[in-house]
């Protein structure tokens, strides 16, 4: 028989055997493994896009979380989802997109706030079916910030002038090279108020609370887990065990294996993160604000 004929026959035979055995093993695995609960970590600042900046370690991008939620929804062995939250919040749009995806999830979603689940991160937590928070975690902080660095005095000191031709009165509002006038301030404040109102509305709906009550506590102040429980912002005080037990209860299962959905870390990520962590926390306020400003060159709203 021809050499290649034998090769093809052997490959086809092995392929078929492999395919059939994979079915057998799959049955065995599913039977033994049974139900799973997916843990999706939400760490650090919540942004719309994954940052490619070497010195920026922003933790969570919308796409990653929504992809993880989609994967968990599609996997029949996953019966419930836990959002492991340790985040100070993020941009309004990013937080809202994740919160909407959580709301749309067909499988029960439990949020577990560890050290921090503030502002945009709390918005996401509130959209889940149940919120478990550590008693000493930082939660709430329902408010909106619009901030940027303004260099006009510094430029004046060095004899640099700013000239920009615009066709609209507000076109260069938020430029770091000029001071805001009263009308511009009023305009931006009105946008912030609108976002704040929407934010409050969402929290009230998600937590089944009266809007007026949420408005009272939505002054930007953060609450410890124990205070948040009293105010009705969280359902239970506890840790991972409580979150897992609740997820099992909502999914109506007795036992479950936990599966953590993590973004695959490349060597570059590990290297850049190890360098960036130190410097990030030293100059967090300045560098973060400056970086955002330089990246967007625009006024930026953050649910922080």
């Amino acid at each position, binding site marked *: 028989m021809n*050499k290649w004929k034998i090769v093809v026959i*052997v490959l086809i035979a092995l392929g078929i055997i492999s395919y059939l*055995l994979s079915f057998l093993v799959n049955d065995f695995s599913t039977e033994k493994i049974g139900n799973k609960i997916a843990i999706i970590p939400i760490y650090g600042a919540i942004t719309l896009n994954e940052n490619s900046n070497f010195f920026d370690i922003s933790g969570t991008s919308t796409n990653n979380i929504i992809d993880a939620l989609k994967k968990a929804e599609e996997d029949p062995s996953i019966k419930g989802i836990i959002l492991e939250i340790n985040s100070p919040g993020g941009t309004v749009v990013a937080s809202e997109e994740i919160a909407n995806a959580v709301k749309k999830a067909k499988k029960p979603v439990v949020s577990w706030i560890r050290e921090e689940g503030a502002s945009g991160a709390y918005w996401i937590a509130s959209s889940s079916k149940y919120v478990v928070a550590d008693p000493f975690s930082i939660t709430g902080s329902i408010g909106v910030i619009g901030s940027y660095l303004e260099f006009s005095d510094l430029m004046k000191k060095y004899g640099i002038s700013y000239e920009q031709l615009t066709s609209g009165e507000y076109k260069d509002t938020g430029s770091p090279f000029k001071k805001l006038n009263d009308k511009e301030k009023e305009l931006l404040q009105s946008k912030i108020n609108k976002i704040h109102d929407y934010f409050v509305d969402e929290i009230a709906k998600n937590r089944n609370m009266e809007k007026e009550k949420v408005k009272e506590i939505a002054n930007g102040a953060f609450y410890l887990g124990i205070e948040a429980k009293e105010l009705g912002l969280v359902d239970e005080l506890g840790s991972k065990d409580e979150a897992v037990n609740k997820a099992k209860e909502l999914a109506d299962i007795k036992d479950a294996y936990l599966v953590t959905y993590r973004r695959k*870390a490349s060597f570059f990520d590990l290297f850049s993160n190890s360098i960036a962590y130190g410097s990030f926390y030293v100059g967090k306020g300045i560098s973060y604000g400056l970086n955002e400003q330089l990246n967007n060159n625009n006024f930026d709203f953050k649910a922080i």
Partner: protein
Amino acid sequence: MVKRVTIEKRPAPLLKRGFAYIIDVLIIDLVIVLPFNKIIKNIQGNDAGFFYNYKFLLNNPEKTSQLLLISLVIGALSLAYWTILEFKLRQSIGKIIMNIKVMSKKKNFSAMQCFVRNISKVITLLLLIDIIYLLIKRKNSQRYFEKISDTIVTEEVLKT
């Protein structure tokens, strides 16, 4: 004038053998491992790199047995791939492409010899021993399991 041409058999160079091995591994990946990929991902949740998976398996010993079962099946089928092809043809696909052949140092060439010489390819620790032996005793051009199975990989060279 008629030139006399002879075919000389000599131990295959390491580079050719290495490439043949890589080709075989790629084919095994495609034919044998691929159907199991989904199950492996299902067991692990998602692929988050070696260190994460290692830690995950340490924390979830019950899943280790599932992966072990899959590893055993893949290992057995891979061993069958090399054993059957080398017994039938003296060559795997990688060896056909690199034009090298397995020869027996005995008179007969048995399936058992093929089985023994290839067993180290599916057990990482044995493969490590094999490669170290090959590098130390380069003159013999034999891996340890080739030595105990009385086989050698050769290439044919035309000599005028």
